[in-house]
């Protein structure tokens, strides 16, 4: 089994998880508060939160007997990660193109 959720890109590949992140823009929330906005069970929300946590996009903290989830500011590595992937792909496309045209002249 693959555990590839440590990367933000993979963690955000799921629409429910993107929606959870959007909800957390409003501020820290408990699982119960988050679950109210979705047609899925609390355990399912918890599972999504765990994946987002593993990807460092979301952090949690205990507040009294509640556990609150919030966006993790370190998540800006997301941006770097995005460009890292973008440039890998763009440069490969560039290489393919130039070598195809160079090869085509022979």
């Amino acid at each position: 089994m693959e555990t590839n959720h440590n990367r933000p890109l993979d963690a955000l590949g799921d629409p429910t998880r993107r929606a959870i992140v959007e909800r957390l823009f409003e501020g820290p929330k408990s699982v119960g508060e988050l679950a109210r906005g979705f047609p899925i069970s609390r355990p399912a929300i918890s599972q999504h939160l765990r994946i987002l946590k593993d990807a460092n996009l979301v952090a949690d903290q205990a507040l009294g007997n509640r556990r609150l989830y919030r966006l993790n500011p370190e998540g800006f590595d997301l941006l770097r990660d995005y460009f890292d992937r973008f440039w890998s792909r763009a440069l490969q496309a560039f290489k393919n193109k130039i070598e195809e045209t160079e090869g085509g002249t022979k």
Partner: protein
Amino acid sequence: MTAQAQRDTAVRKSISVRAGVERAFEAFTADLDSWWPREHHIGKAPMTRSVLECRAGGRCYSEHEDGSEADWGLITVWEPPQRFVMAWLIDANWQYDPDLSRTSEVEVRFIAQADGTTRVDLEHRHFERMGESGNNMRMMVDTPAGWSGLLQLYAGFAGKGAEPGEGL
């Protein structure tokens, strides 16, 4: 210059191409449209052409099906065929922003190799400028627009066959 320690967030990539340095430079710049990923633009309609104006001060922009153009870059250093630098004029909200103090930049170097190939070194740096007043990228996280834009891009990009574990 402040003495503030900035974490190095630059993205660096290298690729080797089977072409001379002049051809590699030309293909990267003048022929940008032939290889630039089609979905990577900030226009409002599907992109028809990606243009890089080959001179210092040249614009980088995309043309779209609805006839509009969307600027996203500015050539700040133009030294063919060795290197060029472009300001990446997209802010933390994924909108065009002409203020160079608030945007990241991309430097591309073309290095001729002994075997006739060219090594292309690319560095995308100064992401920290995209946050307000050097406030790192915190703003990206703290503003809905920043996140939403990024998530949309991510979603589109992830769905377009970016392969897990790819790299150079």
